[in-house]
């Protein structure tokens, strides 16, 4: 599904990622762990197409297509979803309006008919019920006045609506209490299927108690320093990142 080969990325001329190789197959959940400043978030932004990052070497292929060649909106429509570490607030744009615009943009791209207001509301009701999200949030301007937990829940709701092929969760656990964490994890687990893949980017192991990964990678100094199974996450939980040089995190 996703193939990253020898990826080098620089920001303002400074190399952040220094040769990443990663193969994510359909149905797999990969966790990318690492100390602060190791380049985890950079990887998530590269996959979603944020500006300001320069790929100096290497390639990324998604479903057989050159991902780096696509605009961010095209990546989203092709099935990549980034759950933001810090979702934005958008005053003046209703949550429902935003979600409908987003969903219909993706549906158009897939050649599916757009949902009208009634169909959309019905779908929203189902998804809200699954995720335990109150109606009140949808009536508010997008994320305005929402707590950290509510914003993350909104991210999971969007993921459930858009049904991406590859979800990238960037520090989705940060700022969540244990109940919110469980809800978010359930939302992600509900989407797990042999056709969908997930990349979980996290500093801590705790989210991985709820979303059990098939593979765990440690990112340090812009490179994947170690890869293993889910037991690697437990090892990191015990020993920390000392052997990967947490101290000189940029």
């Amino acid at each position, binding site marked *: 599904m996703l193939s990253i080969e020898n990826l080098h990325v620089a920001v303002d001329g400074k190399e952040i990622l220094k040769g990443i190789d990663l193969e994510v197959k359909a149905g797999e959940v990969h966790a990318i762990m690492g100390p602060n400043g190791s380049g985890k978030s950079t990887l998530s932004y590269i996959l*979603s*197409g*944020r*500006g300001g990052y320069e790929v100096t070497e290497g390639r990324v292929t998604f479903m057989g297509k050159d991902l780096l060649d696509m*605009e*961010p*909106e095209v*990546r*989203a*429509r092709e099935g990549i*979803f*980034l759950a*933001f570490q810090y*979702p*934005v607030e*958008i*005053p*003046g*744009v209703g949550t429902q*309006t*935003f979600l409908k*615009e*987003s969903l219909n*943009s*993706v549906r158009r*791209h897939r050649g599916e008919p757009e949902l009208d207001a009634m169909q959309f509301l019905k779908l929203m009701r189902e998804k809200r019920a699954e995720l335990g999200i109150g109606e009140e949030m949808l009536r508010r*301007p997008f994320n305005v006045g929402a707590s950290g937990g509510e914003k993350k829940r909104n991210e999971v709701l*969007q993921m459930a609506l*858009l049904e991406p092929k590859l979800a990238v969760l960037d520090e989705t656990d940060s700022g969540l209490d244990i109940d919110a964490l469980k809800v978010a994890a359930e939302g992600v687990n509900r989407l797990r299927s042999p056709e969908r893949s997930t990349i979980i980017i996290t500093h801590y192991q705790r989210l991985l108690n709820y979303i059990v990964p098939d593979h765990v990678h440690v990112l340090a100094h812009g490179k994947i320093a170690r890869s293993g199974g889910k037991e690697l996450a437990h090892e990191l939980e015990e020993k920390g990142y000392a052997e990967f040089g947490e101290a000189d995190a940029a």
Partner: protein
Amino acid sequence: MSARRSFEFPYVEQFGAVSGGLPGAAQPWLAALRDDAAARLRKHGLPSARVEEWKYTSLASLAEAGFAPVGAPADAGTLPAVDHLGGMPAHRLVFVDGRLDAARSYRGALPEGVTLVSLAGALDAGESWLEDYLGRIAPLNGNALVSVNTAFAGDGCVLRLAPRAHLSDPVHVVSVASGASQASAFHPRLLVVAGAGAAATLVESHVGAAGAGAYWTNPLAEISLGEGARLNHYRIQADGPQGFHLSAIRARLAAQSRYDNVLLSTGAALSRNEIEVDFDGPGGECRIASGALMRGHQHADTTILVDHAHPECTSRQLFKGVLDDSAHGVFQGKIVVRPDAQKTDGHQLSRALLLSDKAEIDTKPELEIFADDVKCSHGATVGELDDEALFYFRSRGIDEERARHMLIEAFFDEVVALVEIGPLRDAMTRAVADWLGTGEQV
């Protein structure tokens, strides 16, 4: 730039030819008022950039344009449909090139104590009470816009509410420039006199017919609110691309009265939206919000003065501007708090979004505070669309152009939300969408 504080305004030389034919010309008080206004214009001309209030807006092109007062009404032909109230019940007065078009107007049954007439009609009928208000709320004090309108105004709208009279359906004043004659100028006058506890809503729509060419509209509104009275005053300014729209509003608010003024402006080559509110008693409230969208070489000036002369009054000023291409925006907002106006609560916020490197905004907030127990503030931001937000939209599959449009529509939401009439809010949202070229999607 001329070092002089003013320059000549040849337009005033046409006063002699038209004044005798203006409605109410036979009434000595009115003739004297008009003569006085014309004399001031002859003497003082138009203000140059040396005059502080006109530092950023030049009227040179107005003086050079060779405008002429509209003569006999020409056949207006097909006029644009103005549907800003979505068919809701309203008392509708349509003015074509500044004159009431009775056939296009509709006045429903009015409650007891409400007078709604055209100014020309009221003057012809010899309504003597007009003398107590016309030129009194907006006195001739050197302001050129006030002088020009006072000298040349012949028609407009008069709304009078007896104490406690409530007009539930809005009054919709539609001003259409037909373009039937070249370089025409008209000077609509609005007068609203609300007695104690009275309430009404006044909506103004200013539009130009397709191909109207250059014209000049110079509306002046005089508003007097009695104790506890309430007026919601909403405007859409969508004048033609070559139009000049120079408007002035003067409002006098008695104790505990409340005045809301919301404007959305997209039209005219050169526009000035001047609002002065005087608190004339304690406990009054006013909210002024102006949204302006500009592109090409449009110039739009919003100039607001709120004068707190009495205690415990509340005022809010909000300006939102979006400027593209080589547009030039101006926001001048002033709050004056006089020594007796303790417990004043006055705030002002100006926000501009620049969509192009060539667009420019001049912002001049001023606070003059002479009382010590007050809450006053102002804030101003000038910026571009938020990159973080744009990326977020795109990461959800929404293309960049649509994302920009949604963010710009959202930017004006704060202004539009103040309007208490649903269909008018929709019309304003639509006007923003039309400006963005996305009318279909709203």
